[in-house]
């Protein structure tokens, strides 16, 4: 690429990045002061010295590490599952011809249009029937596949996998599965990385379903953090110290995946 960005681009991106990061910094600020300061809403610009104290209190109040472990486990597995099943299905919708392909795709996309708030009741009934409420399966199963994932992978693969490559592979005598594995899957990698990251984050931030579906002793991190809000007077310095602490693993994940994402994206761009 020969396009070097100028100051304008850097300036705009900086403004955007600052806007994106400001609330995170704000919540860290509120978690680093005493609760009186936190109750006043707009904190001073610099952090107070109390973050570690507040964080320690948060760690003492809720089963933080256990919940963190649960969240990491649940989010990783579901993200992996979504990427796997949705890439497969997305590829089929994008590149394979079969009867009912069009209507089925429309149907899948249409199911996203019904709001999910009511779905918790039938879903809970279902999970109880199978005996999964009370184990991590209850939060994993509903997330194994998403209509969003299928739609996303399909749109990406439609252009990202050149038909000629598929043809060539088929003519070379590959079976369908090998065609998928050797041609489509590598091309899908950048989108797969994004889908993995997005699914991970969405499952990570999910609150209400884990609240009702998981046993008390085995919460995910959002449910555990919610317990910090008990009491009529909300100690926001405690709550925000806890939530800020809980974002650290996500930030670590960002850094790790970020490099993957960039390199994956770059590889996808090199067509030969």
């Amino acid at each position, binding site marked *: 690429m020969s396009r070097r960005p100028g100051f304008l681009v850097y300036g705009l991106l900086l403004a955007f990045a600052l806007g994106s990061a400001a609330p995170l910094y704000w919540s860290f600020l509120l978690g680093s002061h005493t*609760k*009186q300061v936190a*109750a*006043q*809403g707009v904190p001073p610009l610099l952090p107070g010295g109390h973050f570690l104290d507040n964080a320690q209190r948060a760690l003492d109040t809720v089963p933080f590490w256990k919940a963190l472990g649960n969240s990491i*486990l649940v989010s*990783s*597995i579901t993200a*992996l*599952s979504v990427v*796997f099943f949705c890439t497969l299905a997305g590829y089929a919708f994008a590149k394979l011809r079969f009867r009912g392909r069009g209507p089925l795709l429309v149907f899948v996309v249409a199911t996203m249009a019904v709001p999910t708030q009511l779905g*918790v*009741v039938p879903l*809970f*009934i279902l999970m*109880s029937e199978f005996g999964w*409420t*009370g*184990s*991590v*399966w209850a939060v*994993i199963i509903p997330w194994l596949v998403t209509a969003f994932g299928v739609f996303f992978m399909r749109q990406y693969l439609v252009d990202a996998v050149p038909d000629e*490559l598929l043809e*060539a*592979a088929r003519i070379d005598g590959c079976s369908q599965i090998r065609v998928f*594995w*050797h*041609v489509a*899957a*590598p091309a899908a990698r950048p989108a797969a990385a994004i889908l993995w990251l997005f699914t991970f984050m969405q499952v990570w931030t999910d609150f*209400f379903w884990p*609240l*009702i579906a998981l*046993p*008390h*002793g*085995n919460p995910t991190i959002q449910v555990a953090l*919610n*317990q*910090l*809000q*008990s*009491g*009529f*007077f*909300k*100690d926001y310095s405690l709550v925000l110290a806890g939530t800020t602490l809980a974002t650290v693993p996500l930030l670590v994940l960002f850094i790790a995946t970020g490099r993957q994402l960039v390199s994956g994206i770059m590889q996808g761009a090199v067509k*030969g």
Partner: protein
Amino acid sequence: MRHTVRSTQRGRLALGALTALSLAVLTACGGDEGSGDAGGPVTVTVATFNEFGYEELIDEWNAEHDDIKIEQVKVGTWDDAKANLYTKLAAGSGLSDIEAIEGDAMPAILAESDAFADLTDPDLEGRWLDWKAAAGTDAEGRLIGYGTDIGPEGICYRADLFEKAGLPTDRAEVAGLMGTWEDYFALGEDFVAEVPDTAWYDSSGGVAQAMLNQVENPFETDDNTVAVDNAELKGVYEAITGNVDKGLSTRLAQWSDDWVASFQNDGFATMACPGWMLGVVEGNAEGVAGWDFADVFPGGGGNWGGSFLTVPAQGDNIEEATEVAAWLTAPEQQAKAFAAKGTFPSQVEALDSPEITGASNAFFNDAPVGEILANRAEAVTVQPYKGPKYSDILQAFQASLLRVDDGSQNAAESWDQFLTDVEALG
């Protein structure tokens, strides 16, 4: 093109994924917590929200009992606990053995009380203040909820602002000035004449709630017919909306950010304070000196809040759960909970216990809060009739007051909309 190098990487990735999935299967399958097998102790789960003060009590019970163990399931707010409760009631399973329910939601639960076990026990007769026990009893006379705490109200006030306005500041004197709502509002007009930048009370909603609690049939008649167009309700409405122009109300919604900020900005001088509100005031008004607590409530007495322990009928351990619930709501235990977290007992005997009579609060000028709250609790005479639509109509009513507060509508329009809203509840 075979991409042989990448295929090895992908092979490893796939292997890793499969391993992770299998590990997950293994751990997940073994991860279920059983609730007592034959011969082992029965675990009774108690679901609470906010702070009930049960932590030490539960440790105490568990140390003394081998056959029944208690486990507390805490949710941060009643909002979340309610959503959880309703979802699992609709699904028919998944509730804890004991579910704490907020007082305002009880009328709706009592109207369709089949989902809960009958906790009537002649031994417990007279344990609670009669209006509290009545609030936990359904139309057929079954006791569905054991009362935990109550929220008897006194008046919190800013003695320093009173002084500025030339009003008396001593607790007893102030108490003499606010015996009725007319007196209270008249005093307020005197106050804002002297201190125009500060409102008299914290919110229209708070005062409305207090006034409604003294009306016998605010929204529904005793047979559950909705009758909101009645004289008393209209009277309350007009009094409060009339006060807005007189500057008595801050015109803020309770619990909003602006309301919290108003504590630090001399936003108002008095407030209807149930016991649990004292902690909120202390937190929000940290650094502000001059708060005090008077043993008076306009109209006599009022109660705001308070919860019940119920035993869902879908549970497996109803007998044990009933036993535990009875123990947790006994006078001695509730008094200890009060000492721990400030939840004021609803049990008659507890009102005389040393924890209550000796309780005082330094932030409120060392007011003897226990004594004051006990007096206020006993001063509650009228209990408003609360039918199944009580909470819904209350919400609509509060919204109508807020519309006048924030200027979206005038009093007449807002009242008409309130009537339409109530009809649309269906």
